[in-house]
């Protein structure tokens, strides 16, 4: 294997890591912090992708001069729409099911099926194509033989920005303080005057909004169709479970390991064998560490 080949595989692994992390971070918040198994996470990503598509259609029709900005606006629109939808979902449904995790699983799965069919009715069964902004097309070549696609470089930057944002939100803001206190001890936090119902709603909405951002970014490398969400949901869950459900750091470490291993395995093996090998490793790892790579040590 030549040096530039190795370098571009390392870059691919890095890119895959950020894609997986971006997909999983919203789920890690909803699943990890709140304990809600949100099977509609993939469809929320698809919703974000469709919002990006709508934004690009609106821009190309009424604001063709600033088409380059449509993608950035699309990300913001995707975040706001999916977060708003998450807020609605929490208020109408999830709120009443906190004590019944298995029912949440079924109910959110139902939501995912409904959303898929809604996408099919509204946008048609055929995939839509979100044009990649011209400044994100092509590749950056730091050295001959090594081409780093700009879309992937952008996703790396976006994931870093999202990770930083989540960190600041959870650990440096008042809201984050409330969220963490509610997650640690709900009754105590309530007694201290925190509106726990509102904290739940906001946490869920933020998790959903992040799914929207991920879906928006993934329009650059994958399809946007009614069934798009199904392609992501399994990967997102694997990353979160492998990393340890209650740990955001675990989600990132797990995404990094899976991303690098996959791009490494794909060199000697075929794509589907590499995927199978990853799944096997994850199963073995979970056998020895049932609560994931990073588990919080608590006395139960």
């Amino acid at each position, binding site marked *: 294997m030549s040096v530039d080949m190795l370098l571009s595989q390392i870059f691919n692994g890095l890119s895959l890591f950020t894609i997986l992390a971006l997909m999983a971070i919203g789920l890690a918040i909803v699943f990890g912090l709140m304990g809600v198994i949100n099977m509609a996470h993939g469809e929320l990503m698809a919703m974000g992708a469709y919002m990006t598509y709508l934004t690009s259609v609106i821009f190309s029709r009424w604001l063709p001069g600033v088409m380059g900005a449509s993608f950035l606006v699309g990300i913001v629109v995707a975040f706001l729409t999916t977060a708003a939808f998450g807020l609605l979902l929490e208020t109408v449904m999830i709120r009443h099911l906190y004590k019944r995790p298995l029912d949440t699983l079924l109910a959110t799965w139902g939501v995912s099926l409904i959303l898929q069919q809604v996408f099919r009715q509204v946008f048609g069964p055929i995939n839509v194509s979100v044009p990649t902004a011209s400044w994100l097309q092509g590749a950056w070549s730091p050295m001959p033989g090594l081409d780093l696609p*700009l879309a992937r470089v952008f996703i790396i930057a976006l994931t870093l920005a999202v990770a930083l944002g989540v960190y600041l939100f959870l650990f440096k803001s008042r809201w984050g303080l409330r969220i963490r206190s509610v997650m640690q001890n709900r009754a105590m936090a309530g007694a201290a005057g925190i509106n726990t119902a509102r904290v739940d709603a906001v946490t869920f909405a933020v998790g959903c909004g992040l799914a929207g951002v991920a879906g928006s970014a993934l329009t650059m490398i994958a399809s946007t*169709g009614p069934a798009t969400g199904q392609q992501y949901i399994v990967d997102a869950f694997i990353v979160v479970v492998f990393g340890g459900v209650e740990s955001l750091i675990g989600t990132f470490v797990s995404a990094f390991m899976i991303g690098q291993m996959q791009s490494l395995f794909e060199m000697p093996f075929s*794509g589907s064998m590499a995927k199978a090998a990853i799944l096997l490793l994850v199963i073995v790892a979970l056998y020895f560490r049932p609560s994931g790579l990073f588990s919080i040590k608590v006395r139960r």
Partner: protein
Amino acid sequence: MTKTRRDFIKTSLAVAVASAMPAGLLSSTSFAAASDPVKVGILHSLTGSIAIAEVGVADAEKLAIEEINAAGGVLGRQIEVVQEDGASDNPVFAEKAQKLLVSDKVAAVFGCYTSASRKAVLPVFERYKGLLYYPTHDEGLEFSNNIMYTGADAVQSAIPAIQWLAENKGKTFFLIGSDFIYPRTTNRIARPTIAKLGGTVVGEDYFPLGSTEFSSVINKIKAAKPDAILSTIVGDSNVSFYKQLNSAGITGDNQAILALAVSEEEAIGIGRENLVGVHSCMGYFQSIDSPENQKFVAAFKARYGADRVLGDTMAAAYASVFLWKLAVEKAGSFDVPQVVAASSNLEYTAPEGQVRLHASNHRLWKHARIGKFKPDGQIDILFESPLIEPNPFPKL
């Protein structure tokens, strides 16, 4: 355990019902009085992941049926459509096929898209003596007395595509496909074909259906520098594959890429800009310049909207309905064995040109066409073969 028992009860009930019926009910006399409409089934996925491809196919079949009804029907009887949703789920396909044959008693079914769904319904059609028209190009290696295969087989797509690439683009090939029966079988046929032409395979890779990560194989392609990439990737993965190829600097303009499973309709979802210069090999392209095709395209757009795009499977599905009508008229009966017998050597001028059902193997003599995607998502046809004899079991 309960599941097995329930299945057993279901099956035995079905058998009991079927055997309790007078023998005549299952044959031609069951099709009521001559003035009643004759029922046919349409069985495609309207929901689920494969709906993307199948909805248009069902639309084409309904258009053909409407045209036949407007012209007076078949043997003086109007056609009544019973449509069922296979829901992209193979067991559902089998269940719905049984419903169409046993409780609706349809004269023929137009349906299925994936080989897997066809294999799921095959035993049902053989058991209840039904007749299925299957429109998708497939890997061959199958024959059933109760199925008419109106799409191309490997001899009519992969092999002419490889010959054309070897003549025009070069002799080193990189094979890439989704990981299921069609790509693997196609490439099993492709390898000896390439060897026979003096070419070599410099890489072969498969990805799970729905896979969205192709960066590693793109690196492999860059290292192997093949003269041509032969792709049997299907469905949504194509979007990721072409987008990622393009952003890595590999485009249809600087690398010969031939897709065996990308029609004009799928080009919309992949993004037309990502496909410019990519080759496709199909029996039918919307851009075929013939009066039959112009009529078909105009009728389809008038019925379903001017922005709709047609593809190979849709054209084959449309032709299937007419092939059934012609066979019924030749047989003078809706009885399945008689229709099958009448189908042998049946000729018809389809949108794709003159086609003929084979004397014995239930497939069509077809043209293979190779073309290049233009920026508008339509195909610039570069090559058209003479009629090729279908052969689902090629000797290699």
